Structures are given as C-alpha cells and as structure tokens.
C-alpha cells in the first residue's frame, strides 16, 4: 500500500464522518420540511387553539437553542425512560428545530399570495380547498424554495453540533484525530474545506434558481 502524503493521510478518517454529516442533513431536512408545513399551516388555522399551539411550538424550539435541545435530548430524555440512538437524536432535534424556523417561511409565503388571487377563485366559485390547492399553494411553494434552500445550508452547518453528543460526524472525527495526532492545523483546515465543498454547491444552485425565477417573472 502506498502511504498518502500529509495532510491527505487524514482524509480517509474524516471521510467516514462526511457520510454521517450527509445523512443527518438529508433526514434532518426532510423532517424539518414536514414540521415546517404542519406548524406553518397550524399558525394560519381558523382555530385559535391550533394557532396558539403552533406558535408556542415555534417560539419554544427557536428560543431554547439547538445545542441545549441536543443536550436535553441526550442527557435528560433517558431519565424519562426514552432511549434514542445518537443518530436518532440528531435527526429528531435538527428536524424539530429547523422545522420551527421553516414554519415562518411556510406561513410567510402563503400570506404573500395576494388576496386578489383568493377573490378570483371565489368569483370562479371554487371551494376553499380548491383555492388553497390550485391557486395559493402552487404560488406559495415556488416562493418557499429559495428560503428553504438557505435553511438547508444552515441545517447542514448545524449538523456539526451533533459532535457534542458524540455522534461521529465530520467535526467529531476532526476532534478525535486532534487528540490522537495533535495536527490541529491540518485537521481543521481540511474539515472547513470539506464543509465548504458540501455547502457551496448548494449556494450556487440556489443562486441559479433565483436568477431563473427572476427571469421568468419579467
């Protein structure tokens, strides 16, 4: 076997963490999207109680901060007899937390569809459900995409926090190797570069999409 020259000899170990980071991002954002839709619609509900519950959820999960929630799930939940794997905790907390932020996007986009569109639907005698499904949602979903893209990038960056509950993601592999090799400069330079390579293509794709959308409108 050929020895890989430094600093690239560190890559195979770090690579194992990348898999965990990508998994967390995918599952976490899927859960976050679902939560965002439920809470976002909940905050627009006709029923006061549902609106209240959704708002409390949003404020609670945005206010108590991601890392505290991770610690709470990791250290406190077992006392209630609830046992999750670190991976499950990571996905769950990321999804619930970023879903709370996403609910604002859902709510904002739906409210951003002009009232006159609803009136046009009424004038064509559509049912409230038809107006939501055929007129408001298609327009709102398109508006949601760019901010959800930004949230996805934030979530990808947020996955680094799971290293604090010993889930072996990219950052965790970095801290492990720092202890064993003390080559901090090489390790964390590589870690940052890998995160950049994961996140930046998303940023570029998002900008391309936004430009396309702006063209489509004019």
């Amino acid at each position, binding site marked *: 076997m050929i020895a890989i020259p430094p600093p690239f000899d560190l890559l195979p170990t770090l690579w194992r963490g990348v898999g965990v980071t990508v998994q967390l991002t995918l599952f976490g954002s899927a859960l976050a999207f679902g939560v965002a839709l439920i809470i976002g619609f909940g905050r627009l509900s006709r029923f006061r109680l549902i609106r209240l519950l959704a708002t409390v959820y949003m404020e609670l999960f945005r*206010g108590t901060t991601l890392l505290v929630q991770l610690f709470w799930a990791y250290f406190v939940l077992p006392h209630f007899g609830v046992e999750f794997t670190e991976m499950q905790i990571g996905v769950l907390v990321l999804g619930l937390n970023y879903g709370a932020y996403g609910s604002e996007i859902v709510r904002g986009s739906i409210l951003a569809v002009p009232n006159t569109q609803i009136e046009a639907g009424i004038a064509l005698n559509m049912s409230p459900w038809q107006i939501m499904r055929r007129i408001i949602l298609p327009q709102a979903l398109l508006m949601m995409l760019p901010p959800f893209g930004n949230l996805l990038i934030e979530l990808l960056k947020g*996955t680094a926090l799971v290293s604090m509950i010993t889930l072996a993601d990219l950052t965790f592999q970095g801290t492990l190797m720092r202890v064993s090799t003390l080559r901090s400069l090489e390790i964390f330079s590589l870690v940052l570069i890998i995160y950049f390579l994961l996140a930046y293509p998303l940023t570029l794709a998002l900008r391309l999409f936004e430009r396309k959308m702006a063209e489509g409108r004019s």
Partner: protein
Amino acid sequence: MLWNWDYALSILPSLLEALQVTIYATIMGFAFALIFGLLLAFGRRSKIRVLSLISGAFVEFIRSTPLLAQLFFIFYALPQLPYVGISLSPLTAGILGLGIHYSTYLSEVYRAGIDAVPRGQWEAAIALNFSKGRTWLNIILPQAIPPIVPVLGNYLIGMFKDTPMLSAVTVVELLLTARIIGTHSFRFIEPFTMVGILFLVLSYISSLGVQWLEYRLNSRT
C-alpha cells in the same frame, strides 16, 4: 417527582453567574461583528479588485462553514500557524469566532442598507462637492443604517443563541456550567431545562424589543 425545586433553586445563582459570561461574549462578539462586518462591506465595494475579491471569497467561505468548526480552528489550529501563530484564551477565541462568523452576515446586511440609499443622494453629495469620507459619514451611512437596525437586532439574538457552542472550546458559559453541575450531582433535568428556559425568555423578550423597534421605524416614515 422528577423535578426537584430545592435543587433547582440551589443551582440558580451559579447559572446566573454563568449567564454573565454568555452575555459578555455576546456583546463583545457583536461589537466585533458590527465593525468587521462594515469593513467587509466596504471591502466588497472597493474599486481595488483584489480587495473586493478577497473580501467576497472570505464572506462566502465563512458563511458556508459551521461556526463550531471555525471555533475549533481558532482555538486549536491557529496556534500552529507558522510565524503568526498565537494562542488565545478560550473566551477570546470564542468572541473572535462569533465575531468573525456574524460579521459575514452583517456585511450583507450593510450592503443591502447601502444599496437602498437612492442614487440621487450620491449625486447630490458630488454636486455639493463633499469629500468621499464626508459623503459616507454624513450622507450615506446615516440613511443606510437606521432601516437595518431591526435586522441587526435579529442577528444579535441569533448570536446570543449560538453562544452555547463556546462550551466546545471550554468557555465556562451557561451550557457548560449546567453540564458541570449535572455531572457532579448526576441530575441533568434541572440544569439543562433551566438553561433552555433562560435562553427562551431572554431571546423572546429581545425579539419583542426588535419588533417594537421595527414598529417605531415604520411609523416614522
């Protein structure tokens, strides 16, 4: 019962003391971000191409990588940098990390604020023969900054909520204090729940403050 009130009360003073560290780090980090963010915004607008390219690349890179990994870099990797390597105390490293990370977001906010000042204001400044510095100081920034104050406020709250990450580089702030207390007493429910509540209450009150600011700004125009 799982929750022990006596225990909760007994650890409250330690938590409140640690909260001071958290708040100190937030204020210092945000002050740094306010200044450095403005410099980055100027850098990106600069006519010197190298400067604007470097500022732009810096902003893109920092925004695309996690704060936590940046903190590790500053605390552990920076001392190993040849010639310029320096060791920082945990708190200094934490403040620097928060400040640099948020300065890249604030630079975008400044940029939006500056772009929103009408072209005619620049032209009027030229017509009145203001110097470049005077134009910025007396004409542009006084118009660019007030509208973005609520956005800056939201980033301040965001930074406050990111401070628990400083515990990763051994800053004894709120979360690490709670964790130490928990480890000693084998009770995690009270300390972590109380930390969560402290963050919730403080950030909620601050966000009401920002909303009030926004309302004031909107009603002024």
